[in-house]
């Protein structure tokens, strides 16, 4: 069957228009022809939902140093982050935050008119001694103002956008990445974007969990595209469960609430974090707080008729402070929990929030092979930044505010590096069959007339991941999940898309997303099964201790030629760029 394909040619093609994609775009478009492709209009990207802040050792309110920030990041990662990337990010943070301010981000201000800063989980002064004010913020709308300002900046530079285009296949040839095949959601039709360099900035995958804080679009598409072309997903098992998701709804209540003085209480009214993290208490990193909350519930100290959640109390800082510093939270608590947080505590439980791992890169955002004889070897023409990427600065557990910093620093770096690469290299010709796999995949689903549909399958998938691959895992729960996921994969062969239209066919997009989500869930579960230790966001009840001898290494998940999941490992890059390494230590707060 002959299929019409429209061809485009750009030096750099950026997939995704969240904070990382837009920051890459505003840099790359200054030097080379650049296109940004996004499933949604840029301002609909999930960066918009980030609330509490972006960290940088500006020291606007008290003494702070990037090396303290670096230490906190390494320790927060449970020593799985790569220390060259951690140094790179934390050292550049102050300069890049100032740049954001210069392009118009409306940060909240100190009395002197400087960028305001607040404490956040795991961020400390003097290597863990006490919480430090490091998170720069704009009330509780930090991601919102950053994304919109970056969009506005890219508009000022006349960046070329392809909005509501859905990526179907990553194109490769002669060992290089050289383009993307997309589907025009609005009008139908295939488009091949031929590029010298492709930047993946496609965001995360936490929609695979029933209770999550993510947008509908966060279905791990970038991971699936990369996996299908033989690239790796690094540290797949490390999902971040944010402690304060609104009970039942999963929507996020920022850690900034605890930064501003909020505390967690169990059914006895006890501030239980004092027992789990005596030094920094409620401002312990997220993995530790989430686990502590689940332990409280399991010990029968949960709140409510089912004793199945805890409370986040903030009313004691006063209504005026809440309306000034946390206005968005006030609205979310009202709509999603029916609670006025100036008067009552908010019911909360952990919610799947962030993919700590991702497509492995070096600290300059060039994707690396990760497996084989030269794991650190860069892939020509392939860059990644933001939640999809793993430089790695988050390791086994990301610190709050480091995600926005990650997408600013590495988004910018990806823009610089991809533009540099495009200037120094020629186009790699498209393979003869370029795009055929993606076209066949879409046509398979569009023409499918089997029995299974999105609704029931998505429900099974997300309930399975929540129940068996959640905050605590065991060999038994993970094996159960594996069975359910294998069954879901089979069900995809007997699928049905009722909607045959080529115009804004949301059912078709959901089918393609489900196809990706099942693969991503399988990869994650397999990685979790193989990591027989507890580290950061990966808690194995059957292996409750960290095991540095056997597992101080990155997991690398790939697909073999037959599409089977393969697990390898890669050493952690312990050597920073200029300073002494932070050696492995027990992680206490």
């Amino acid at each position, binding site marked *: 069957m002959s299929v019409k394909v429209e061809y485009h040619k750009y030096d750099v093609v950026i997939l995704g228009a969240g904070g990382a994609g837009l920051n890459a775009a505003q840099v790359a478009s200054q030097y080379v022809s650049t296109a940004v492709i996004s499933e*949604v209009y840029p*301002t*609909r990207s999930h960066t918009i939902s980030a609330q509490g802040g972006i960290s940088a050792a500006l020291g606007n309110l008290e003494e702070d140093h990037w090396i303290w920030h670096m230490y906190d990041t390494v320790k927060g990662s449970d020593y799985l982050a790569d220390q060259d990337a951690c140094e790179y990010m934390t050292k550049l943070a102050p300069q890049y935050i100032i740049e954001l301010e210069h392009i118009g981000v409306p940060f909240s201000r100190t009395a002197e008119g400087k960028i305001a800063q607040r404490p956040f989980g795991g961020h400390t002064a003097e290597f863990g001694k006490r919480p430090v004010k490091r998170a720069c913020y*704009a009330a509780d709308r930090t991601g*919102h103002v950053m994304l919109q300002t970056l969009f506005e900046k890219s508009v000022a530079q006349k960046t070329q956008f392809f909005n509501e285009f859905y990526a179907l296949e990553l194109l490769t040839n002669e060992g290089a990445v050289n383009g993307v095949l997309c589907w025009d959601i609005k009008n139908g039709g295939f488009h091949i974007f031929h590029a010298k360099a492709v930047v993946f900035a496609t965001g995360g995958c936490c929609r695979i969990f029933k209770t999550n804080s993510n947008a509908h679009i966060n279905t791990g598409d970038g991971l699936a595209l990369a996996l299908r072309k033989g690239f790796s997903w690094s540290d797949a098992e490390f999902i971040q469960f944010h402690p304060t998701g609104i009970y039942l709804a999963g929507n996020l209540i920022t850690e900034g609430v605890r930064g501003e003085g909020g505390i967690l209480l169990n059914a006895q009214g006890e501030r239980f974090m004092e027992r789990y993290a005596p030094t920094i208490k409620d401002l312990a990193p997220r993995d530790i707080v989430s686990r502590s909350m689940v332990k409280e519930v399991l010990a029968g100290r949960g709140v409510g008729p089912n004793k199945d959640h805890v409370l986040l109390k903030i009313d004691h800082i006063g209504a005026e402070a809440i309306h000034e510093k946390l206005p968005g939270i006030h609205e979310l608590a009202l*709509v999603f929990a029916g609670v006025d947080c100036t008067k009552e505590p908010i019911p909360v439980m952990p919610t799947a929030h962030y993919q700590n791992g991702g497509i492995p890169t070096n600290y300059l955002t060039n994707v690396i092979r990760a497996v084989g004889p030269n794991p650190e070897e860069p892939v020509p023409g392939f860059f990644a930044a933001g939640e999809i990427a793993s430089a790695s600065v988050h390791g086994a557990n990301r610190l709050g505010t480091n995600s926005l910093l990650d997408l600013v620093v590495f988004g910018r770096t990806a823009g610089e590096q991809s533009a540099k690469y495009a200037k120094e290299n020629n186009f790699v010709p498209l393979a003869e069959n370029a795009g055929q796999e993606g076209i066949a995949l879409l046509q398979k689903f569009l023409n499918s007339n089997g029995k299974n549909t999105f609704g029931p399958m998505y429900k099974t998938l997300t309930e399975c991941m929540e129940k068996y691959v959640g905050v605590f895992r065991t060999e038994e729960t993970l094996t159960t999940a594996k069975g359910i996921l294998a069954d879901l994969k089979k069900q995809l062969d007997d699928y049905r898309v009722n909607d045959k239209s080529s115009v804004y066919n949301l059912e078709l997009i959901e089918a393609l997303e489900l196809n990706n989500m099942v693969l991503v869930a399988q990869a994650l579960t397999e990685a979790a099964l193989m990591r027989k230790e507890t580290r950061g966001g990966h808690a194995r009840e059957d292996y409750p201790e960290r095991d540095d001898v056997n597992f101080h290494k990155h997991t690398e998940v790939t697909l073999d030629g037959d599409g089977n999941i393969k697990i390898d490992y890669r050493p952690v890059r312990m050597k920073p760029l200029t300073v002494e390494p932070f050696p492995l230590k027990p992680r206490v707060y």
Partner: protein
Amino acid sequence: MSTNKFVTFEIFRYDPEKDKEPYYQTYKVEIRRPGMLLLEGLNQVKWELDPTLSFRRSCREGVCGSDGLNVNGVNMLSCMTKIEDLGTDHIVIQPLPGMRVIRDLVTDVDDFFQKFITVKPYLIRKSPAPDKEFYQSPEDRKLLDGLYECILCGCCSSSCPSYWADEKYLGPNAFLRAYRYLIDSRDEGAEDRLPILNDKHGVWRCHTIYNCVEACPKQLNPTKAIVGIRRMLLERGY
């Protein structure tokens, strides 16, 4: 959870590939919890009753601006609207008015974004920036409150009779953002922006009907911004 309580969704349907003209289709939507949101109802339709319905949604918490819809005649976000607050069991859901329909509840928003871009919605500087951040007093920063929170959902512009009547009218959304930059103590772009706003399709076309204020799901006040821009134009002798 099944409650046996149902409401009717009467939804605008249109697929240009097969429908000569739009029609309305009704669905019985089950209320499964107190406080159930309109978006949960739409997802119930999509995932359990009729997978062919197309609509936009993403963040599902009122910040991405994807899901502005016209519900019983009023523009709102489906993800922040409780069904019970609509005060009726019969809910008519239409795409945002004044915008071309692409398919079902999905409208063409390119023109809306183009108008936003027209007002130069970015910080304009003529003099060099300092090494550190620009100092901005908390009082100056406070001037941006009530302006910067816009989520670009289009509920305001699509509720505005002037926007419907004049296809070149820039609309309340564009003015809200223009004013956010005009009064930012760091901005030096007033002379670049004001002539655009002074155009016959600019702020003078607003008839202060206040539909935009009613429609804004974030409780912002574009009319106040329009009045602010008019004052600046007059003060600067435009």
